């Protein structure tokens, strides 16, 4: 029988990169330059466009849907600081193209997806899912993508 620790809770893998705590539809958090309109992820303190260089950037939620631009399926366990599930199971990493932002972002592909069915161009959406359980038993959560 699995015993859940009373103190077990969900914690974000990194703060300020995605909406937290979970409520409604999750989004990545990026920046938009109010001068030239370019987007950035993760957030920046100033526009990285050398023709702009404005410091007037605003925090924005990025589109949570996009097209699969490319991907890979990792069959070997990556080295630390990656924390594998026990036992390690192959999983995919994806690059997803966001239409409105005209940029590509990365994330793992959600667990339980049929990895052999991944296809460049397919519609993907962002979800939140556990990456691993930390030493205190907390669920460390990050964004992932799954086919729509």
């Amino acid at each position, binding site marked *: 029988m699995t015993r859940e620790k009373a103190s077990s809770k969900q914690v974000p*893998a*990194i*703060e*300020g*990169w995605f909406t937290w705590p979970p409520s409604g539809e999750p989004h990545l958090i*990026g920046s938009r*330059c109010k001068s*030239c*309109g*370019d*987007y*950035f*992820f*993760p957030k920046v303190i100033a526009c*990285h*466009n*050398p*023709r*702009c260089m404005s410091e007037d950037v605003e925090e924005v939620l990025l589109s949570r849907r996009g097209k699969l*631009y*490319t*991907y*890979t*399926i*990792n*069959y*070997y366990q*990556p*080295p*630390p*600081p*990656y*924390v*594998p599930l026990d036992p390690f199971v192959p*999983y995919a*990493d994806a*690059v997803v193209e966001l239409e409105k*932002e*005209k*940029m*590509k*972002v*990365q*994330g*793992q592909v959600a667990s339980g997806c049929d990895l052999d069915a991944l296809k*460049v*161009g397919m519609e993907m959406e962002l979800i939140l899912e556990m*990456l691993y359980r930390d030493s205190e038993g907390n669920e460390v959560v*990050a964004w992932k993508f799954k086919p729509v």
Partner: protein
Amino acid sequence: MKEVAIIGIGATRWGKYPDVSNQQLAREVIRQALRDANLAWKDVQLVVAGQDAYSGYPGISAGAAIVEEMGFSGIPATTIQNGCATGSFTLDIGRAYILAGLYDVVLCVAAARSPGGFFPTVESGDDPSNLDFQRYRILGKTNPSMFAYQAVRRMHNYGMTETDIAQVKVKNSKHGSLNPLARYQKQFTLEEVMDSAMVAYPLHLFELCATSDGAAAVVLCSTKAARKLTAKPAILASIFAPQPKYPSLDVGLSFFSTHSTVSTPSSTPGVERPHEYEVCHGALEQAGIGSEDLDFAEVYDISTPMEFDWMEDIGICKPGEGEKLLWEGATTIGGRIPINTSGGVSSFGEAYPAQALVQVYELVTQVRGDAGPRQVEGAKVGIAANKGLGQSISAIVVKK
């Protein structure tokens, strides 16, 4: 054209040297390179060393550690870190000192002892601003994962097959079997490559480079002084290693996104072109030649399908035609434009700060006509290209 001469080269065989220090590896190749140049240690006026981030102090402060190993002769030494373009930058800095007229003889050297398995992130804490740490932690994205992204796109764009990917290894292992410096000298069959374990779809184990130990050294000299020292110097015709121009559309190894092209006018020329194209063409332009002038090329086959992309980025063939040239035998020694005559990184494994220097070792060996059974007939000019951490990509042209 701002040229300097290469008058000495040295390299260890690539492999695993757990019982030898970085300094001892460096000593061996410096001895070789100086003997090749008919010079002594006392003649070296500056050492530019490549940093090995995985070997502690002797790697981090390689210039000082190497000069101490050879014997303090009162010369300056500096250490360069620029990912896989580290070796290229040792040459770039050495060239600049010579062209500025400050020194006549500069030794460029790098020694590396790599951890086994995947290259890990360099030791650091869990800092949100350290995207290289976070790519392992959040994505589990290894270097082969990034290579696989590139391969999947090529399959999508041009219909590259898994057989094409494996055949590059077959060809390069044939070249590597002729090179005493290659770590792997076995000639692989297509079946052996395709039957090896899948690491990062679509890439099998034998289509990815290992992580190796090794060292290489190059003695640079002003062209004027070179004429007094050797009858047949090789010429370092160009080095080009710029960071990309905004917007960068490649997620690379340690970025979580590409740039956005909202502000980029759709009419902007070349915005979709990979940074590799700009680097390779910049190096050719600096050397005052076109891709049609090349006799051979050493390109970074850290994963074998990259070889096709490099061929197109250099201008050896049109986009999507790399596979055809491979199967026709054009890129095999004896063909029209042999690629990776050394066996490539797939036969060497990567000792990253030294890798560009051992690419140059092969360019020099070929233009000197000293490559023995893997000699490209009439080799006069060759290019080397590599890429790695950050967006550090470099290309180097060496000519007779």
